[in-house]
């Protein structure tokens, strides 16, 4: 591989958005048959760079070379023509269409006036076999798993003749088993001569699959290293710019009485089906209970039922002895429940509000925040300053909408606010989604601090690593039911992964 041809080269790419510099003087070379990881924190400029390669943005300065030729990458079509394909984090597939229909969309092979489905299907089948993708061309997208949808996206790029495949955060939505499969597929693609760029901030996957890793921090290339000569520790430190601890330090939990108890809870999803189907569990004071499971197994409905956002059919929810089943969100909150929502942009913050305005989102109606209906903007400002100071939130200004803040700082603001409500139970749903290593560390520390303060913490996460690291006790959710309960020191990724796929604890398959 030492003499492999350089298929894609970026020379001195700089991209400015107004006064913001997203990429600065980035140079980067991709060799044929190589898996090249692009590592960086959120907002480091990885996605911007790849959007430049894919023709979605134009660089302010610098040049792009494909197979030794300088090119003007002005549209995605140009990129596809040059053999570059991109698999986005959020799939761009038409749900009711078949795999074949999705793949040929936009460049249908013609037989006279009609679309030549037969030859398209045959070609897709052949590509699928060649690269071990195991995709059924006639299946409908809505009926296949997320992992297979992703393989359809990969197949789409191959069908369009891509030699260079860019994968943007490809493992974010997959189960551990699906991740293993994906990594195998990537190796297969590389061995067949395709070149791959994988954008990620997960070190484990880089160590497992990548040949080279380029680290980007604040829009600049920090280093480009051969993965086999590096270590996760080194990569993480280069990415964050300081020393990082992976294992979250925590003492053993000292659980006390049950503070949140759920009995036989049944909740319907938006489609009218039972999404939470007879769930019973308890969270004790001074304990973090982690709910593991693949997205869509009832987690969202469970959280909504617990926080008063969704009506439950039957069952009981008691918070410190008080019944909160089907109570309004405000009542639930005042009974001692805080909530770090999964979707902070949709549920946690009003993005067009300033930091002070967001700080008082739940307590604006309290007498200390308004006098006879007139808002006390000084009180809100004082509160916001307290949060910013004690949680080290970086903000562009108190009168600027929080939209302008980074994801990590937005999350810090939510956590500051939720903890300040002095809850008995804290529900944290995917609290580190989309955050970088430094911010993740912070969030985990805060959750553990709350536990040590005698609060009950319910952590819902799709990231096994997070559950294993932070939780004191683990419940695995599948199809709205509990399929297993275990402790982090008594289990491993493999066992949890199987349970997440529906295998009941102890081996009886479901």
């Amino acid at each position, binding site marked *: 591989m030492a003499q492999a041809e350089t298929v894609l080269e970026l020379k001195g790419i700089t991209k400015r958005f107004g006064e913001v510099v997203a990429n600065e003087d980035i140079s980067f070379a991709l060799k044929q048959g190589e898996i090249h990881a692009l590592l960086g924190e959120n907002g480091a400029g990885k996605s911007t760079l790849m959007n430049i390669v894919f023709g979605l943005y134009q660089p302010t300065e610098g040049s792009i070379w494909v197979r030794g030729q300088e090119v003007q990458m002005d549209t995605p079509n140009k990129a596809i023509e040059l053999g570059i394909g991109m698999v986005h984090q959020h799939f761009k597939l038409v749900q009711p269409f078949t795999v074949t229909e999705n793949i040929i969309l936009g460049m249908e092979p013609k037989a006279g006036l009609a679309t030549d489905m037969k030859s398209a299907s045959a070609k897709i089948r052949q590509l699928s076999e060649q690269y071990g993708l195991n995709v059924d061309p006639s299946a409908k997208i809505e009926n296949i798993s997320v992992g297979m949808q992703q393989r359809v996206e990969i197949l789409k790029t191959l069908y369009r003749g891509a030699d260079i495949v860019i994968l943007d955060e490809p493992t974010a939505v997959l189960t551990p088993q699906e991740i293993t499969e994906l990594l195998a597929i990537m190796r297969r693609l590389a061995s067949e001569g395709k070149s791959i760029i994988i954008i990620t901030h997960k070190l484990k996957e880089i160590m497992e699959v990548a040949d080279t890793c380029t680290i980007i921090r604040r829009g600049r290339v920090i280093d480009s290293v051969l993965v086999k000569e590096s270590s996760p520790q080194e990569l993480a430190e280069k990415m964050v710019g300081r020393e990082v601890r992976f294992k979250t330090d925590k003492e053993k939990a000292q659980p006390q009485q049950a503070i949140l108890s759920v009995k036989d809870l049944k909740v319907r999803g938006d489609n009218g089906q039972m999404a939470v189907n007879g769930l019973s569990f308890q969270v004790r004071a001074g304990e973090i209970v982690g709910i593991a499971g693949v997205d869509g197994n009832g987690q969202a409905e469970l959280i909504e039922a617990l926080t008063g956002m969704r009506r439950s059919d039957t069952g009981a929810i008691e918070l410190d002895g008080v019944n909160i089943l089907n109570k309004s*969100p405000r009542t639930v909150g005042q009974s001692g429940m805080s909530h770090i929502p999964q979707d902070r942009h*949709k549920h946690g913050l*009003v993005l067009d509000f300033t930091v002070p305005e967001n700080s008082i989102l739940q307590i*604006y109606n309290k007498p200390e925040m308004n006098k006879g209906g007139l808002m006390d903007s000084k009180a809100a400002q004082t509160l916001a300053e307290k949060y910013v100071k004690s949680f080290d939130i970086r903000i562009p200004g108190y009168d600027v909408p929080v939209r302008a803040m980074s994801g990590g700082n937005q999350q810090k603001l939510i956590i500051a606010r939720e903890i300040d409500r002095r809850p008995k139970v804290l529900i944290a749903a995917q609290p580190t989604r989309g955050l970088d290593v430094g911010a993740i560390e912070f969030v985990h520390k805060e959750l553990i601090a709350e536990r040590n303060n005698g609060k009950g913490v319910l952590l819902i996460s799709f990231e096994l690593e997070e559950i294993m690291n932070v939780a004191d006790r683990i419940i695995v959710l599948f199809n709205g039911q509990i399929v297993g309960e275990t402790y982090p020191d008594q289990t491993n990724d493999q066992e949890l992964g199987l349970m997440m796929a529906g295998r009941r604890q102890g081996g009886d398959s479901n």
Partner: protein
Amino acid sequence: MNNVRKLLRSDSIWIPVLSIIIGILIGAIVMLAGGYNPILAYQSLIEKIFGSPYDIGETLRQIVPLILSGLAVAVAFRGGMFNIGVEGQIVMGSLGALMVGNMLDLPPILHGIVAILVGALFGGIWGSLVAIFKVKRGLNEVISCIMLNWIALYISHIVIKTFMAEMGTSRSQPIHDSASIQIAWLSDLFGGARIHWGFFIVIFMLIGYYYYLNRTKWGYELRAVGYNKHAAEYAGMNVSSIAIRTFFISGAIGGLIGTFEILGVFKYMAIAPNTSGIGFDGIAVALLGMNTSVGVLLSGTLFGALYYGAQGMSFGADVPPEVIRMVISIIIFFAAAPAAIRMFLKMFRRKPKREEG
């Protein structure tokens, strides 16, 4: 000074300004193509607006309902909803004011105050119906608004014909003089133009609108729901009652438009085959004014002046007044399609940016 510079560099100020300039220019081109003299036309438009005290007064009269209509639409917009039913709320407001003005006997001043309050209440109730249908039954507010517009119109026909018909005409009996809110001495000052108390109430309401949104608890709720309904709900706000309250306020402002027209301008209500169209103009006023107090004041003033001045244009330059309707439409078009303007701005801004960097 810094703030002014910041404002001048933000798109939000240049988009409406450029929209207006482009609208006027395209209007001129159309006039040229039609064989009219645009310079003469615009000159007579301005002369009509400022020509005499009477004209200035009548221009002000024209502006009042447009500003109110803009405010009615804007308050709903800020709450994340679209009030396209101001037309119906105007009719109900007119009807309420007319009924009080015609059917009750009260001392002067008090009579006017009661009539104004009832007019606003009628409009507010009519507006809140829209929100009630929306939150209780999930009915899209655009559909219910448009239907309620017609229902209001025909209710007004029935009520007028049954209780207040003026024989031999297609209009109602006039209100009693005690309910009039015209200001006689001010009207005299403006050469007989129909100036009424509504003019001062509007100024008060523009300030009130700003305070309500930015300083009160209810305004905080309204903005939270408007920006992000889901987060507001998560934070424990009662989104349904906030929506109903917002539509009540919006409708009450709409009701005031009709109220002022009846009590201060026309004194009677016509049995018209159509609603006035002022409610729809309000959408344009709110859009160009970006739903802010100052913006609505400026854009309402502009549209009111253009509408009134259009009469002078047809008189002085023989240009059909439809041209001004078209100019306004073009302004709205560009204000609503800011991407087109931004492209324009980019070309101008590229140079100064380099100097700074």
